[in-house]
C-alpha cells in the first residue's frame, strides 16, 4: 500500500487529505501515476496537469520519478503562501 497525501484543491478532488491505495504493477513512476490518479478519481486531466507536482517520502521529484507501493506520495497543486 502507498500512502497518498493530497493538498490544496486536490483534497477536494480526492475527497480528503489522506488515503491508502495499492499501486497497480503498471504504476511505478510519476508519469504513469498521473494517468492512474486521473482515472481513479474520475478527474480527467487534473493530475496529468504538469503544474501538479509530487513529493515522494518528503522529496520533491520531477517526472518520471520512480515509485514503490510502500511510498508516501504527496500530491501537490501549485504552491504559494504569504
Amino acid at each position: 500500500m502507498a500512502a497518498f497525501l493530497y493538498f490544496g484543491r486536490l483534497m477536494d478532488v480526492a475527497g480528503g487529505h489522506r488515503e491508502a491505495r495499492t499501486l497497480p504493477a503498471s504504476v511505478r513512476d510519476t508519469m504513469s501515476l498521473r494517468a492512474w490518479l486521473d482515472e481513479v478519481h474520475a478527474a480527467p486531466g487534473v493530475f496529468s496537469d504538469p503544474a501538479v507536482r509530487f513529493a515522494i517520502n518528503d522529496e520533491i521529484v520531477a517526472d518520471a520519478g520512480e515509485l514503490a507501493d510502500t511510498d508516501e506520495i504527496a500530491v501537490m497543486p501549485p504552491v504559494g503562501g504569504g
Partner: protein
Amino acid sequence: MIALLDAPFEPAEALKRFEADAVGAGAIVSFSGHVRPQAASGPVTSLYLQAHSPLTERGIEAAADTARERWPLTSLAILHRTGKMAPGEAIVFVATASAHRRAAFEAADYLMDYLKTEAVFWKKETGPRGEAWIEPRGEDYADRRRWG
C-alpha cells in the same frame, strides 16, 4: 528565527525580539502580510493555510540560506502562519538586518517573492460566496523572476 506558527502572532512583538537579535546593525527592514478583508473575488471572512512539513520548513530554510549568501545580512527572521486566520491577522513576517539599508531591503523583498510563489503552502479563502483555493497571481511569478 524561522518558524511556522499555528496561532496568531504580533509582528510588532516579533520585530522587538528581532531588534534584540540584530543589535549593531545599521538597517532593519520588516515586512508583514495580513489577511485582507477584501479579495479580488469579494469579502473574505477567513483564510486557511496548509503546509506540508518538513518540506515547507526545508524550503524556507533554503531560501534563507540563499538570502544570506547573496546579501551581507547580520540577522534574518521568518515567521509564517498556518491554519485558519481572520481578516487583519498576520500571515507572514520577514525581517532582515544589515550594516546598510540596500541589503536589508533587497533580502526582505527576495524572501517575500519566494514565500509568495515557491514556499510550500496552499491557501483557501472563505467568504459569503463559499470557499476557494487561491494559487499565485501572474504578478507574483513576475516578481519572483526579477531575482534570476
